[in-house]
């Protein structure tokens, strides 16, 4: 009894500050679960209601089908507005069938909120930056996957009707769930000359017979369906017929060069609302888009003729390589080289158009099945599906009477069988991708004042050297932004008063007294325009020659990097660059 009392007292005495990991969330969400549009909407709103000091939600607009494109903003208003801070934009599921992308975004919001005030590292990150999340960039496609008979690849695009087969009719012949099992699978027919046979070892499957050997007796007819429009073709014009990830403006190409591009960039509301949001939020310095599948961390260029500035390539690669270390069996890749050419993709737009360091992650790789870095063999895959997934990714074959073909067998693997993370492995996948994204977020430009040196070079004449440092990988202006004058360049101003005046300004290469000013000829030396920004893990020494006395105020404004301000007295002084090691043993000044 006494022991019980002691335990109870201890339990009640425990305060939040002594809470133990894993930290509980105010909203109980499971990550071995698939959330359809309605459930995801509820989950997002529940999180916002539970963490009003961090989250807000609004709709960016409606999809073609009238569903909301939800935008969740994560920001601590006590440390500034979301626009004042450097921000990261994270979205997922622009391909409707790539559903685990949305759960990954949901996980990110959930994990960040429950870690605030608990995990110091993430608390700092949240205080310093702001985040914009779009969990379901293609809610229509997602809903089709959930609630209509679907496959791992369907519905990739949206539901706006398109005449895919150019016969004057729209969406008149899509797949049909003939056997009523809720899935679109394959149709097989007994055919004496057929090149498939029922697998000898595993009669649940058809396999192709070897070249040159006798026919197997079966032919695959194609995807489950009938010739709805009686034109002699089956399933040639189903729902939609375009690819929202080819609808972005940078290197947008028409349909005959890039299938799925539609008539013009941002012809789709789903892409347009995000594009306009990004244009309106120049504080966004990092972008992550989640897709499936393949275990890839993709950076551009997406076309062989696109050349990215090498410094930006290095920035992308440095971050992606870290991701490769955090995500087992994922490979950092360059899209056009290692995957395929994409014209008009989202990360191409956010980088080429807006100068934002961007990645697309293809979630889930079959290499995770055996977790040994190898793609599973046929036997390994069978083991996984039969004994770890308990055969739940197959539907048994049924014989039905097809109006055209007669007796056919319908069945096989379902929409859960590929591209999708098995739910019992989902949380880890979410976490690792989220962690990589937080690493990327943390490496967004972070500007701070470095060294300060004020020297008298004459009567009431001062040489003020002031350093602006960026201790992160991403520069405050990417080379792409600098080259194409995207957005506003960084501006350093020296505010003088009646007592003082700037005679000249520019940069210096070092703090040595003998270093000459690289003067920027200007009518307004108080104001320096820095098109290249401050480089990654770099700093720039600015120098001002100032007449007079008293005090001046320096302000550095970076679109992506925030605002700095510092008052400097015109008197001999030197302050070294502060070293910002948090949690170091003996913090230095």
């Amino acid at each position, binding site marked *: 009894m006494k022991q019980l009392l002691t335990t109870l007292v201890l339990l009640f005495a425990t305060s939040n500050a002594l809470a133990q990991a894993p930290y509980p969330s105010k909203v109980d969400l499971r990550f071995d679960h698939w959330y359809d549009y309605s459930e995801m909407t509820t989950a997002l709103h529940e999180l916002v209601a539970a963490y009003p000091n961090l989250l807000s939600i609004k709709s960016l607009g409606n999809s073609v089908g009238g569903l909301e494109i939800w935008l969740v903003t994560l920001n601590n208003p006590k440390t500034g507005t979301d626009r004042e801070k450097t921000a990261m934009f994270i979205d997922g599921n622009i391909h409707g069938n790539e559903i685990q992308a949305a759960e990954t975004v949901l996980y990110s919001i959930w994990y960040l909120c429950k870690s605030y005030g608990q995990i110091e590292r993430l608390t700092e990150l949240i205080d310093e930056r702001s985040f914009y999340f779009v969990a379901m960039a293609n809610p229509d496609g997602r809903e089709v996957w959930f609630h209509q008979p679907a496959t791992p690849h369907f519905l990739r695009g949206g539901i706006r009707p398109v005449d895919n087969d150019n016969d004057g009719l729209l969406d008149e012949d899509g797949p049909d769930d003939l056997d009523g099992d809720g899935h679109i699978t394959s149709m097989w027919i007994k055919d004496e000359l057929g090149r498939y046979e029922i697998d000898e070892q595993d009669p649940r499957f058809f396999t192709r017979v070897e070249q040159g050997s006798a026919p197997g007796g079966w032919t695959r007819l194609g995807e489950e369906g009938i010739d709805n429009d009686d034109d002699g073709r089956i399933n040639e014009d189903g729902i939609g017929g375009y690819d929202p990830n080819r609808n972005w403006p940078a290197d947008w190409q028409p349909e005959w060069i890039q299938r799925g591009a539609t008539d013009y960039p941002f012809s789709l509301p789903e892409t347009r609302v995000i594009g306009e949001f990004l244009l309106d939020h120049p504080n966004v310095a990092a972008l992550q888009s989640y897709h499936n599948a393949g275990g890839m961390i993709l950076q551009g260029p997406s076309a062989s003729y696109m050349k990215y500035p090498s410094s930006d390539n290095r920035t992308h690669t440095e971050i992606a390589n870290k991701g490769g270390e955090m995500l087992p069996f994922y490979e950092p890749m360059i899209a056009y080289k290692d995957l395929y050419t994409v014209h008009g993709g989202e990360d191409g737009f956010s980088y080429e158009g807006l100068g934002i360091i961007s990645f697309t992650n293809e979630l889930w790789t079959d290499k995770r099945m055996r977790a040994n870095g190898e793609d599973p063999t046929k036997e390994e895959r069978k083991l996984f599906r039969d004994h770890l997934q308990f055969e739940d990714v197959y539907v048994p074959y049924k014989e039905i009477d097809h109006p*055209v073909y007669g007796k056919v067998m319908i069945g096989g693997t379902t929409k859960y069988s590929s591209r999708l993370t098995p739910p019992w492995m989902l949380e880890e996948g979410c976490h690792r991708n989220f962690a990589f994204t937080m690493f990327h977020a943390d490496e967004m430009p972070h500007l701070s004042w470095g060294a300060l040196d004020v020297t008298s070079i004459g009567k009431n004449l001062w040489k003020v050297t002031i350093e602006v440092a960026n201790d992160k990988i991403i520069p405050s202006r990417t080379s792409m932004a600098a*080259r194409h004058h995207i957005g506003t360049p960084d501006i350093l101003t020296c505010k003088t008063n009646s007592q003082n005046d700037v005679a000249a300004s520019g940069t210096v290469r070092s703090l040595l007294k003998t270093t000459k000013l690289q003067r920027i000829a*200007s009518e*307004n030396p108080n104001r320096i325009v820095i098109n290249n920004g401050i480089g990654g893990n770099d700093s720039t020494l600015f120098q001002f020659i100032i007449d007079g006395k008293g005090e001046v105020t320096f302000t550095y404004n970076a679109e992506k990097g925030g605002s700095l301000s510092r008052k400097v007295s015109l008197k001999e002084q030197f302050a070294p660059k502060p070293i910002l090691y948090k949690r170091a043993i003996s913090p230095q000044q």
Partner: protein
Amino acid sequence: MISLCILASISIGLQEIEQETERAWRTPEEIRAHLTNQAETVDEITISTIGHTQLGQPIQCIEIAREGAVAIEDRSAILVVAGIDGNHLLGSEVAIDLIAHVLVMDPEETRNLLETHKLFVIPQVNADVAQYYFTPASPEMIKNNRPVDDDNDGYTDEDSPEDINGDGFVTMMRVPDLEKATHIVDPETPRLNASPDALQGTSAEFVLYSEGLDNDNDGKFNEDAIGGVDINKNFMHGYQYHGDGAGVWQLSEAESKALADFVFAHQEIAFILVYGRHDTLSKPFKETGKDQAGAPKTLHTGDVELYEKISESFTEFTDLKNINQPNWNGSFVAWAYAQFGVPAFSTPLWGLPEGDDNSENSDNEETKSSELTPSGVGDIAQETIDELTEAAIAKGYIQEDEMESEITAEEIEMYCKMMGIEVKRINTSSGNKEKSTGDGAWLEYSDNSRNGEGFVEWAPFDHPQLGKVEIGGWVPYFKTVPPTNVIATRAEEQAKFLVDIANKLPSVRLGTPNVTQLGKTTWEIKIAVINDGWFPTGTAMAESNRRARPFVVRLDTENSKIITGQKVQRIWALSGGGTHKWFTWTVQARSNSDLSVQLYSEKFGSESIKIKMKQTNGGEQ
């Protein structure tokens, strides 16, 4: 006379034509009022608003059609668009006046245009920019009011040109500044400027700025004027991402979006004519290879002949020959041809011919001269870019390891400026012959035909910031807006040209079917789809890009009853001149039963023929 009766019902517009009074250019508001009135008073004219400009001015579309055999909504259409270029007032007025001409012409002549087909006219897409012509002492404006930080200094539109000497024009300033100097007075034609040539003993004497003050006191003059996006660079084909005046992305501007949306909503548009700065008619428009994604930059090789023929016919109706053909990247006409997929043409309707003393040029030089166009930064030859890049590296402007093989032409211009090299565009292959094709010819024209009113003579001026300068130069709009008496002739010519185009449009029909009995219930059906018009139903470009919808040929019977042949087939392009495309099916059907063949085209309409299963005896026409 029939035309007299119609004359009575067409009021103001036609009277102006008949009377030949000195007319004024109409403001956008006046144009809209006139068109609204026309729509109210003339039966054949319907007006609609397809969108609004950035400042909220309605963009009007006029539909002109007469009752005929085919319902108006089922007809294919010709579209005329003008005023995408805000400084192209002539196009807008001609577009409006040609409507009146077309309506007074003999209805027999205009039967195809107005009764078989219909005409859409969008006379002024870019009213916001057109308005500047009517603003006193405005520079000639092409870009719209979208704020753009042209000089990348963090401020927007902070320094525009002004008329500081009060002569009513914004022209140029010659500023003696040996450090910044780039030009000398042209020794042969002192009104013009030329590049210095050290070996000729000349060195730069002055720098040229547009007239005005340094409003933001940054030492630069008029470096960030009002003026953001050039609507005619905002379209998808050849779009220059981040290009000067291209806009933040394709169709970013209300005007271009409205125009594109209208065209998309009207798949029945079969031919597009644009009045504006681009030209594809005064001389044959060339094929110039493919862009990096594989699309033809200008024409598909399969359309070169078509464009040649239309150009020939155009120059028969007008005397416009051999005008400069600026690069069409990002333009509406380029998109209409290359992506919407119809024959699309453009003409400025006025201009000085390019070097008529160069008419003897070989094909090679002609090609060169049309490639080296006096607009757009992207026209510098690759060899030049390579040489300049090397020089820039030598000077330390570019770091070797930062160098990309795709240095932009804008960067080249910047390095040239830094190295003191002037980038000048030449119109002819034979060097800087300004005299015969460029400014020299314009000066002659101004002096001889326009009382010298095109050029303001250089005169000294005491600039409050720069001291002694000279102000002078071309009068804004002189080279783009002619005297109004040009309108009448052009409108009449264009009306005739469009009538001729309408007569050439595809005329597609199903021929008489041929039925052969093969067995008791087995039949062979042969039928041809015939194009009696002149134009093919699809350009070679449309065939490639698969965007202009095809003709769909559908045999209306159960698929299971078709023994041979596809039930649904498509014709992407069918040449004119009576070309037949044959379709054959073998079907199972009862004797004397009926089948039908349907011909459907989103662009050209539908037709259906009933076929009786009964042996015919030859006889297709």
